[in-house]
């Protein structure tokens, strides 16, 4: 990664960069949510930075930590020419989970933002086609939020165990279904 890019960023967007750190050499800058598009486009177009690849993009839910704001959206930027990396983070409150889209800057942002919407319920303003990508439209809720129970399934095909008859059978109040005769009967 590159300390240079971090310094340049802090000089250029002094008021928007809320916090920076480099843990294990990963330069990270937490920037203001409103400024993400400006920051990203500047980082991409600045010739000596040239972060032309949005390597990855994801979100983190800090519910169990009790941190405010609850969500973080994380961008991993890479420059193929300069061979350096930078991580940009924006903080997203739970009550208003909206971030500006980067689809105009990076082609991949389209699907990555759809995935974040799918998994965390964070919306991206200006996204052309913000719908679920990994899960199905019938799915209710956003599974990677920490308060979504891990094993809460939402079947598309109705299962017998939901039936009253099944409960009755479990309590021995209904006749079990007839079984075929045993092999030996043949």
């Amino acid at each position, binding site marked *: 990664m590159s300390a240079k890019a971090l310094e340049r960023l802090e000089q250029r967007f002094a008021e928007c960069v809320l916090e920076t750190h480099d843990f294990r050499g990963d330069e990270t800058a937490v920037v203001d949510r409103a400024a993400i598009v400006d920051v990203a486009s500047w980082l991409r177009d600045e010739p000596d930075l040239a972060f032309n690849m949005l390597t990855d993009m994801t979100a983190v839910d800090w*519910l*169990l*930590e*009790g*941190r405010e704001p609850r969500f973080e959206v994380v961008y991993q930027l890479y420059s193929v020419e300069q061979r350096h990396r930078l991580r940009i983070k924006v903080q997203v409150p739970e009550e208003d989970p909206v971030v500006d889209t980067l689809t105009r800057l990076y082609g991949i942002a389209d699907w990555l933002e759809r995935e974040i919407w799918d998994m965390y319920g964070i919306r991206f303003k200006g996204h052309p086609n913000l719908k679920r990508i990994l899960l199905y439209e019938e799915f209710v809720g956003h599974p990677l939020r*920490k*308060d979504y*129970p891990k094993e809460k399934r939402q079947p598309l095909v109705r299962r017998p165990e939901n039936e*009253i008859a099944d*409960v*009755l059978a479990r*309590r021995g*109040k209904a006749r079990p279904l007839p079984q075929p005769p045993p092999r030996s009967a043949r």
Partner: protein
Amino acid sequence: MANETEEKKTDKTEPPGPELVEISIDGRKYQAPKGENLLQFMLEQGLEISYFCYHPGLSVVAVCRQCLVGLAKMNKLVPACQTPIGPGMEVDNSSDKVLAARRQLLEFTLVNHPVDCPICDKAGECILQRHYMDWDHAPSKIDHSKVRKPKHVDLGPRIVLDDERCILCTRCVRFMAEVAKDPQLVVSKRGSKAVLTVAPGRKLDHPYSLNVVDICPVGALTDKDFRFKMRVWELSSTRSVCNGCATGCPCEVHHRRDRIYRLVPRRYGNHDINDNWMCDFGRYTYKAVAADRLSLPRVQGKETGWDEAIGFVADRLKVALEGDRARIGVVLGADATNEDNFAASRLAFDFLGAPRVYLGAEPEGDAGDDFLRDNDPNPNRAGAAACGADIGTAAELADDLAEGKLAALYVVGERLHLPAEALAKAQALDLFAVQATHDRSPLVQSAQVALPAAAWAEVDGTITNRENRTQRLRAAVAPVDFARPHWQILVQVARRAGLTLDFVSPRAIFEAMQQEIELFKDAEWGAELPPQLLRYAGSRG
């Protein structure tokens, strides 16, 4: 664990104590209350220090020596738990000397500890394990065999002792002597032969005895009911309140896959209610949650689906509403949450136009004591009473039934006790519906319609204890088969009967409740905490 620390802070609202003096711990300056216990202060500051025998609720004996710290101008280490804070104190909590001393003490503690973790019930929430990993994690130097002691000592009806695991911290001894006020436990013999045992001719059968299982830092004292049932790290913990009696001890429900395994007092709970203790009776109330439940709606003796049942109730209710509205009786439950009772009273007064509501509650018993357990076995009598302006008792209800004042009877909860003839009268009414969790009382069995309600461990809501303190219940497990929360059933019945009782969640009811009822003005709903897997919650104890 953010949640606990956050509650810890809320606890530290004691009145201003002794004057503050400046001390330094590892060179950092602190303002500490003069004379307070140094270890307690360090723990409150979130400093890392190991200890076995100290417990905030018990007296200090400093037998484990695990909390040794260095003091300036003192060449020998002193136990922090026995050191009152003095002005200008310079505490050394991290020098090699201190850490080496703690490591050696841990090594000594482990010399005779059996290799039991795979079969030990405490494994996973064991303080010895935690301190070994945090402070020592060095390989063993011992080559000789360990001292053998009795491995299965039956101390009493509820507790089994493994003497080999015991590290003789005497927490349990002090608890029985100081909190239970009944010194049933002693340490006998000396040196490496010292064993924990009951006093001659006694048994460990005090109604508070199970607390020693919680405070035991190792797996020496185990609960006969819980042992070998489930490994603790597989359990999830949900903060709730014990519904055993009107005391309302804050507790944690430990459950896995919608089955409850135990109740334990909540760490950093409301100390002025139960001070981290819980009575044995309360701990075992979890068994009743799953026992003989009413799991399907029952209309006139035969089980049906919800639609039929609710339709039936709604039709009969309409019939009753045709006539004199004053003749509809609604009974609130001392076992239902405030939200349920509030919804019921809303229905009764605003929509059914009933003149009064009745309260169904168990009669006072005599099982209580002066500390944890109350004579009143109803968890929420105060809250239910507050939900109705004019509350009639079961006796008055029986009279009204006898005099034929009522045309319909709608009962929330199952704690209403009516004489047989009153029940017979009730059966003859237009409507006699009961929302009950269990299917055992004559009330439920004689009702025209029995609607399965979710039990206290299955719902979100608040209950109010004997000293009018309103606390939060959180849903730990899913309702059995087809049970539903009281408030939900009420709303559905009302909707079907064409009444606009439009509540969407217990939270919404709670907020409406706060507007109307004085008692709940300063109650708080609290955070929505998902169940936490003990495995990653760090060791308890």
